[in-house]
Structure formats: structure tokens, C-alpha cells
């Protein structure tokens, strides 16, 4: 069932791509636009480092979201099958 669903969605995804490409094939070739901007702000300012309290709070919140964290807050990951 899951396999069938996946195949069905995959098929519809590819069909849409093909139909969309057909819809634009007669248009002229132009330069590509990746962003509507031409100027980028690539230099971030040096900020004050966050306080140790803020860092501890962030770590606590981050760890609480990890699905496989142990009681010490370490990330538990599955051992890769190929190592067995």
C-alpha cells in the first residue's frame, strides 16, 4: 500500500513536470534569475557572543527536541547497518 502510494505520487509528480515544461517550451531563452536581488549582504557583523546562560538554555531546548537523546543530552544514533 505504502509502495503503491509512493509510486502513484511519484508518477503524478513527473507528469506535472513534463506538462509544465511543455507549457513553456516556446518561450525565448533568457538569462536565469535565481533571486530577485542583485546585491547580497554577505558580510555579517561581529556580534557580542551570547552569554553562558543563553547558551545553556539553547542547548537544553535543543536537546529536548532530539528524538534519540540519552539522559546526559548526548545524541544517540543508530549504528550503521554495514558496520555489523
Amino acid at each position, binding site marked *: 500500500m505504502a509502495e503503491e502510494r509512493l509510486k502513484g505520487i511519484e508518477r503524478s509528480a513527473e507528469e506535472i513536470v513534463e506538462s509544465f515544461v511543455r507549457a513553456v517550451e516556446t518561450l525565448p531563452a533568457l538569462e536565469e*534569475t535565481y533571486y*530577485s536581488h542583485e546585491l547580497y549582504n554577505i558580510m555579517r557583523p561581529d556580534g557580542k557572543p551570547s552569554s553562558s546562560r543563553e547558551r545553556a538554555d*539553547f542547548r537544553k*531546548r535543543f536537546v529536548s527536541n*532530539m528524538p534519540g537523546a540519552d539522559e546526559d543530552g548526548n545524541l544517540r544514533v543508530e549504528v550503521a547497518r554495514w558496520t555489523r
Partner: protein
Amino acid sequence: MDEVTRAKLKAIKSRKLSPVENVQQAQERIAKLNKKINAFIELNPDALAQAEALERKIKRGGKTGKLAGLTIGIKSNINVKGLRVTCASRTLEDYVSTHDAEVIKRIRAADGIIVGMNNMDEFACGSSGETSAFGQTDNPAAPGHIPGGSSSGPAAAIASGMCDLCLGSDTGGSIRNPASHCGVIGVKPTYGLVPRQGLIDLAMSLDQIGPFSPDVYGAALLLEGIAGRNPNECVTLDVEKISYIDKLDAGIKGMRIGTSPKFRELTDPKVMSVIDGAIGKLRDLGAEVVEVELPHLEKGLPAYYLIMSVEFFSATRKFDGRKYGKRIEDVCGDEVLRRILRGRYISRKEYRGKYYQRALQVRTLIREELMAALDKVDVIVGPTVPKLPHKMGEKISVSAMYVYDYLTIPTNLAGICGGVIKAGEVGGIPVGLQVQGKALDEGEVLRTLRAFEAIL
């Protein structure tokens, strides 16, 4: 039309209404209506405490921010520290945000009070509000019909008066589409005007955060609060704080307004008839209405879906179920999976030139056409959505769903701004007028919306 936000702000500042009372009223209304409408999927347990703190500050005579005491709902793809930010997906159903998005920091600094997280289409992948893993949202303005999407919750929350203002995000129309279907104000700002830091991406080159409000004043106020350069972002625009409120009531006499025959070609005649009436009213207000050419407008749709899918595929690779959440492909809905698979397909090396680069060329074409049209006029007006919203639960094809986005997508591809206001109704269902402006011309867009609002 009444300016409810201006009146409420005045009442709070003059201490006729306390922030605590305002939050309590919002919470009562949410408790009463949310079971049916499903506009909120998470409430902020600290909202009342924040209102009490603000009240103490007001009593002490302390200086308050421009959003002081207003209740604000946040679309569930914008990080709010301590609240579950789920993108309405099982993927992130247990994710409690570790940080505030930049826009949330700005709202807090302006003394706005966040009351909760709004429902949405899963990962913003939808135009109907039906794909949320936490149940679909009803349309308070046309019960039993879809509210539009993907910012279904914010639009429905405003339309039902659950809170004063909301934040949504717009990648291909996700603010303007539900604003149109729910009869509220929605504004998609110029790309780069509002910080995206802390927004969970749908498509990073198109996403933009913007306001929902029951009136134009509220939208202008919230936009003022969140707009402006963020030095930590690479695509931020070099814009300092702007006032949109100052010129809001300047009127539109002498303004040049463009409209395109292409809109009529793509739009349901019943919807177009309401829009024609609205354009007539703008002319009566002293605007000069002229025709502009947008010959390839409809080609924006295929280009958008190709670009968005590639960017979405890339953005979702972090949802692998290790650091937080569940693996996205294992738990997401059909539309999210369709976009991921489409993005994966297009991203294959052998297809890059055929699909992705071709779509980026069409983006250039749409952008050039819109820019050329906006060179001749101050704003372009037309319908927001080409058809009326379908009934909830009604099955429509994938391509019929994408048609909802025909008229909103070009704004995102060009990176310009757009706003929506209710123009009228067809059989009791709201129809929104879309006003598009040049990059950073939010002031003109808001001025046009306000002039129209003032005569309703």
C-alpha cells in the same frame, strides 16, 4: 469601513482597555470558535503573563511600543521560542522552538502579544488549508468553503476576530489567496524587506513574511513593526525603518493604476465582474486607469512549481529525523511528498538544464514584463484568485488546485509587493482585489487599499 485596529490601539493607550482584558477577550473568542474553525493549533500559555507585565509598564508610565497590547497569531512555520512550531506536519509535531525568528523579536520589542500558532497547509504546500496534519480550517466568511492557503489559520483567525493581527508567509500567494477568500487584508512585502530568519522555508528565493489584519491600518502597523534590514541575512534589503501609516490616508487622486486584459482571460466572469466594479470605484476616487500588457502572465505557474519544488526538496533534507522531528518522507501528506519527489526528479544532474534552468529563464521573462508594466503605472490592480473557493472536502485535481495560484505567483517571481482587500462578494463568498506595486512601494499599495477601504 471601521478601522478596528486603530480604535483598539487608542483604547489601550488611553487605558480604556487593558492588555490583560484584550488577551482575555482573544482567549475567550478562541475557546468559543476554534473547535469549529481550527485557526489555532497551539496557544501561548504565557500570553496573559506577558499582558500583565505590559500592563504594569503602562501603569508605571513606561514607554510602550507601536503594537502595545495587540494580540497576534503566528503562522506555524515561524519560530517562536518555547512554542511548538510544527508547519502543521507530523514531521515536526514534537518540535518546540529553540529561538525566536527575527520578526518575533521585533514584535516582542514593539509590545505585541503572541497568543498562539496558526494552522496552515502542511509545510505551506497548498492553496486550500486542507492539507494540515491537524485538520482543515473552515472559512468564517463563507462557512463550509475552503479558507484558501497556505496561511489558512491566520486569515480565518482574523476573519473570525480571534485576535487583532496575524503573521503569515507568502511564497506563491499564501497570504493573498486566503486573505481574498476570507475577506481580510493581507500584504506580501517586497522580497528582502522583512527578515526571513527563523522562517521554516518552503522556497527560500520566494518566501516572504507579511501581515494579516481586519483593516489596512493594522496591516501597515504590523508591517512597520517587522520591516527593515537584518544585518545577519544575506538577502536583506538595505532599508531602514519606514513609516507606512503617515501617508495612508493621502488618497489616490491622480494615481496611475494599471490593469491587464490577461486577468479577464484567466478569471471566472463572476469574480471578474466584482473586480470590474472595484476598479470603477478606484476611477471614481480620481485614479487614472490604464491597460498594461502582461502577455505571458500564465507561464509563471509552471515556472513557479518547478523552482519551488527544487528549493523545497533542498530545504527538507534537514528533516531526516535525527536532530529533531521525524523523517519527512515517512509521515508527510501526499502534496508535500509530491513536491519533494518532483524536486528530487528535477534536481537530477541530467535534467537540470531541461527543467530548472528553463524555469529560471521564464522567471526572468515574467519579472521583465511586470517591471515594464510597472514603469508605466504606480500600481497594477486585478483579481487575486481566478476562481471562487471550493467546498471543504470536495475532491479537485492537483492541477485544478494549482490554478488558484495563477494571479499571485508572478508577484513572488518578480520579488515585488502586493496587497489584498475585499472587493465584494459572489453568492456570499468574498472576492479580493489584488494591488501590486514596484519593489519597496508598499506605501503606494497600502495607500490604494486604504482609499478603497474608506469608501466601503
